[in-house]
């Protein structure tokens, strides 16, 4: 029976059999579910988070963080130096992202092919997948008049400085421009996985189980059993147990929780590479104070970017600048200091413009492990080159803000680091402290902890996303990315997921 089952509807232990069990319902799991269900497979999708629809999205941070984000938005590295934002609901991070939909840069795919020997993911081979997904999700550029004042800062400032800046592809239809993309779209205008792939998968026969948390996987011959608990959403407590048995299991829990599940299960780690090579697409921001009203939470949150500085040295690194919807909590956490000086900055909230700088890492080192409770621990050390890149990115973003008319620009340093002109930047940046928790850092794009490559000693999965160690056990999510992408990852994950799911459908025929 095609359906979405929720924890509240379950009172007794659940035992299910399927052709394919998918753990996670974000870009990786959702896309795989649709492809495999439409190929006639009996698919069960297990989602730890809840199932919410447009009427549940009230456009407040309180509701959104509580219902839709991992650890209520508080997930972070073990030293709290980097906040790692991820969705935890049906649709995963696509339910709460800001709609930016960009193809994988060609230089990244070339590197995957030539350094990691990845097969089948060249720009030419991914082209039909990108085209199909862009059509399915109505990915399009916004007309000039639809950019909000916060995005215009990037377009105007970059243009004055001679930097390349352009509109970003967005997966929306009939967007109401309320600015709530990060809080769940109350109009179903954002074509996220929860309103596209998941309903289509269900229509094709998939069963989606929300509030079902997978705890571990057991391999018995050609069969796998996924064990877990059904969660009472109100208390986050265990309600009952479930077991799903299937010959094919796909882990799509994201780059933090997929390796944690493999660790707990003791699977797929003969290479010792599970949990390694975490990249975060390290992000910080500048805040510009403008005379006019910007209202950084209103309008389309992210519709423009400056991509002048990605891979300019041909070293695979560089930075990228995008707008960020500074909802009150996000703004309050980003602003420096505390107390009355902090409050004074918050009183100027409507006049704040905010731009993020995202660094494509080349020498940072991150990993995911387990704590004594079996939950993931994120470790991350920023490399010197990446830190230098972040400084260059923040200076560039600050210059863009001044060129667009900012009266003051602040970085996200714990101690106020404030500038009134571009001429002050070099000295101010030299004076500033850049240690852990001295600059606020974020990530919304964790990737790479179950790396894809053809060599089984260097990686966890092959080019089809199947683990080297166990036939029929797949990882299809951001974990498999061999390197940081340098762009927002949803389109890449969707394309890799569709391609891998097609391969599974061809190579794991339905049992008679």
């Amino acid at each position: 029976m095609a359906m979405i089952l929720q924890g509240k509807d379950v009172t007794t232990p659940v035992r299910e059999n399927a052709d394919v069990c998918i753990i996670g319902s974000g870009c990786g799991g959702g896309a795989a579910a649709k492809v495999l269900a439409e190929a006639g497979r009996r698919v069960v999708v297990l989602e730890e988070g809840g199932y919410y629809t447009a009427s549940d999205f009230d456009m407040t941070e309180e509701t959104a963080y509580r219902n839709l984000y991992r650890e209520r938005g508080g997930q972070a590295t073990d030293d709290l130096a980097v906040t790692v934002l991820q969705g935890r609901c049906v649709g995963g991070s696509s339910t709460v992202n800001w709609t930016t939909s960009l193809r994988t840069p060609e230089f990244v795919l070339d590197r995957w092919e030539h350094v990691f020997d990845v097969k089948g993911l060249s720009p030419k081979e991914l082209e039909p997948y990108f085209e199909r997904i862009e059509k399915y999700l109505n990915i399009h550029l916004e007309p000039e008049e639809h950019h909000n004042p916060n995005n215009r800062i990037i377009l105007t400032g970059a243009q004055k400085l001679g930097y390349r800046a352009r509109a970003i592809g967005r997966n929306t239809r009939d967007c109401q421009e309320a600015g709530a993309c990060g809080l769940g779209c109350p109009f179903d205008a954002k074509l996220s996985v929860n309103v596209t792939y998941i309903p289509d998968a269900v229509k094709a026969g998939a069963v989606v189980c929300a509030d079902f948390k997978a705890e571990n996987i057991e391999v018995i011959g050609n069969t796998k059993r996924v064990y877990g608990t059904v969660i009472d959403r109100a208390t986050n407590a265990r309600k009952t147990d479930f077991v799903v048995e299937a010959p094919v299991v796909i882990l799509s829990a994201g780059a933090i929780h997929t390796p944690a599940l493999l660790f707990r299960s003791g699977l797929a780690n003969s290479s010792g590479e599970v949990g390694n090579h975490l990249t975060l697409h390290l992000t910080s921001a500048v805040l510009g104070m403008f005379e006019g009203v910007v209202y950084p939470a209103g309008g389309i949150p992210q519709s423009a970017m400056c991509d002048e500085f990605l891979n300019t040295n041909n070293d695979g690194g560089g930075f990228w600048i995008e707008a960020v919807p500074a909802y009150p909590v996000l703004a309050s956490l980003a602003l420096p200091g505390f107390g009355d000086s902090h409050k004074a900055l918050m009183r100027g909230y409507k006049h704040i413009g905010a731009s993020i700088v995202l660094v494509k890492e080349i020498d940072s080192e991150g990993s995911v492990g387990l704590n004594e409770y079996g939950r993931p621990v994120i470790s991350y050390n920023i490399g010197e080159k990446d830190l230098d890149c972040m400084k260059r990115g923040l200076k560039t973003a600050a210059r863009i803000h001044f060129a667009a008319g900012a009266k003051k620009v602040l970085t996200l340093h714990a101690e106020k680091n404030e500038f009134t002109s571009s001429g002050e930047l070099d000295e101010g940046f030299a004076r500033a402290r850049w240690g852990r928790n001295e600059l606020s850092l974020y990530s919304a794009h964790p990737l790479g902890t179950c790396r894809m490559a053809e060599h089984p000693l260097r990686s966890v999965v092959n080019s089809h996303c199947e683990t080297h160690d166990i036939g029929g056990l797949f990882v299809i999510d951001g974990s498999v990315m061999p390197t940081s992408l340098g762009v927002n990852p949803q389109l890449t994950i969707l394309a890799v997921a569709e391609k891998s799911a097609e391969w599974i459908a061809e190579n794991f025929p339905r049992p008679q």
Partner: protein
Amino acid sequence: MPGTFSRRKFLKETAFGLIVLSAARFIPLDRAAAALKNLPDQLKFFSPMEFLIMENVAGRIVGTPAPGMASVEDVGVALRADAFLAGAEPEIQNQLHELLAVFNGALFAFLFEFQFSSFVNMSPEDQDAYLNGWMTSSLAFRRTAFQALKRLSLTLFYTDPRAWEEIRYDGMFLPWEREKKQ
């Protein structure tokens, strides 16, 4: 960036940290005694002393409201923190208990900031100086602890609509409402 140096490593792996941690739990409190009598009795996570520490911390971090605007007490930040932390993972709960004990401890305040009382017994000016010492400390674990307290305080304050009037945030709205609200 300096090398890895988390608060847990400091507290758990050094004998000095253990002494500080132990001592911090048993520091007598004088000025706080009166305030403790008026605390809510339905706490789920905090001890009464921890509640008082959280309320003081949140008040200093969020800052003084303009006349007529909502304060941390109006919003009930410490009570909201209590409810939030009651549902948190056990490792986070343990860390918060340890953090508040260390943060408030008079011995710790003396060792690191040469203050002669626990946090809740300090004057508001001394509390600000003490918080600033944690925020800007050369020890990474103290900066981490400050960030944890800052996040908790600001998140629980600014998610409440009563906090929005002072910053003139009108909530989310549709384009055709924009002119009216801005």
